[in-house]
């Protein structure tokens, strides 16, 4: 199993953000993490990347325990946080070399070329990040996440705020990556799931309410669209 999560809970003060969730993702799968805003998607991802600890339960990545071998786990995981944070005053290659360096990559130059190639940043590579369009910034964020050739990619809303052309481009990049890596990505957009994922985990109010393949989810209500299934499962009965 690439990602294994057992009874994971997270409390922010009094508020229960994650309520004992469990799932496992075998390697090579692209999994869509779906749910309304505030459902706990980002929280789960922050725990899996080691940014915050869980309140209870345990999780492992590639067989390594998250709490005990945090630094080892981080070497295997590439992470694109929500809102894609970037240093706007750095140049693309300068930033990616830094990202490679802190990810522990030995041959940073080679990793830089690989990441630029994968995300097709070539034409813009000598620009400052602050000068880039949103689509290209997203690619820089993605390049940063995969610069150390991680086994697992965790992407928090990788296509939010992009125009339709850019969405398709980023999707293609992720789809290509999915052939050799395990990808967990969160999104609100159903078409996105259909375009990229083998499997869907639906989460609402900190609980998993569906964990199924795309086909399996459609079979539960064959006449409904995925949007309607989503609305029904998250408690908003009625089609749009």
């Amino acid at each position, binding site marked *: 199993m690439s990602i294994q999560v057992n009874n994971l809970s997270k409390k922010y003060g009094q508020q229960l953000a994650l309520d004992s969730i469990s799932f496992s993702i075998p390697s090579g799968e692209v999994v869509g993490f779906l749910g309304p805003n505030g459902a706990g998607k980002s929280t789960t991802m922050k725990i899996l990347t080691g940014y915050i600890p869980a309140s209870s339960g345990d999780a492992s990545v590639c067989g390594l325990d998250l709490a005990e071998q945090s630094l080892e786990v981080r070497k295997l995981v590439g992470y694109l946080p929500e809102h894609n944070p970037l*240093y706007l005053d750095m140049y693309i290659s300068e930033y990616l070399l830094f990202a490679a360096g*802190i990810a522990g990559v030995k041959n940073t130059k080679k990793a830089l070329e690989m990441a630029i190639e994968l995300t097709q940043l070539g034409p813009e590579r000598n620009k400052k990040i602050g000068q880039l369009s949103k689509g290209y910034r997203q690619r820089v964020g993605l390049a940063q996440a995969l610069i150390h050739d991680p086994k697992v990619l965790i992407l928090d809303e990788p296509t939010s705020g992009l125009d339709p052309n850019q969405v398709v481009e980023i999707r293609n990049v992720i789809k290509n990556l999915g052939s050799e890596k395990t990808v967990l990505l969160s999104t609100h957009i159903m078409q996105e799931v259909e375009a990229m994922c083998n499997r869907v985990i639906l989460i609402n109010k900190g609980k998993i309410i569906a964990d199924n393949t795309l086909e399996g989810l459609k079979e539960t209500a064959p006449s409904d669209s995925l949007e309607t299934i989503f609305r029904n499962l998250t408690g908003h009965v009625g089609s749009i």
Partner: protein
Amino acid sequence: MWEVFKKEIRSFLGSFIAYIVMGVFLAITGLFMWIIKGNNVLDLGVASLQVMFNIAPYILIFLVSAITMRSLSEERRLGTIEILTTRPVSDFSILMGKYLAAVALIVFTLLPTLFYYYTIQQLADPLQGTDSGATWGSYFGLILLAASYASIGLFASSLTDNQIVSLIISMVLCFFWYGVLSLLGDIKALDAIGKSLEWFSLDFHYQSISRGVLDTRDVIYFFGFIATFLGATKMAFESRKW
């Protein structure tokens, strides 16, 4: 750690903070030492850098705070802290990288003032020369003092994502530990309590090292001071995990 260190140094040089800090420091110390009438070196006729070592602590309160104000608060504001802390580097090495970069920049800022020392040596009575022990002691003390300011500054920037707030907190804390505590020793009414509080001030130990006598107690004080504030920084930095 060195990756973070290198990135910080690059960002100092790229954002002009480095040049402004160095320029301002040299301009103010130069003015006081050579130009402003009253107690500049030429008027006093004493071949020593004492004028510089007296005002440098006050200039550095501002400059060191300006260097460190963005180091953690900017990462928090941008959200890049989430990338930094999910890479295979410990929180401690992130902080040390940032801290050592700030200290390196300060040492670099002090280097050109060695030219003042050379000038003074040339001006001094050839038979008596300059008090090299006091000068090197003062340099050592000034670096330790600035390194202490840097630990305060880093702590301040770990508390907020607003650079201005960070700058103000840092300056207030630096001034408290340098100036306010040492003034307490002069207040007659406080008597022994004032004296013992004075012992905790940065100024007390800075003055002591400046005399050119290297007392291990002073050095231990400075290292303890820095370790304390870096420890507090680490706690604040990891508050997301609470």
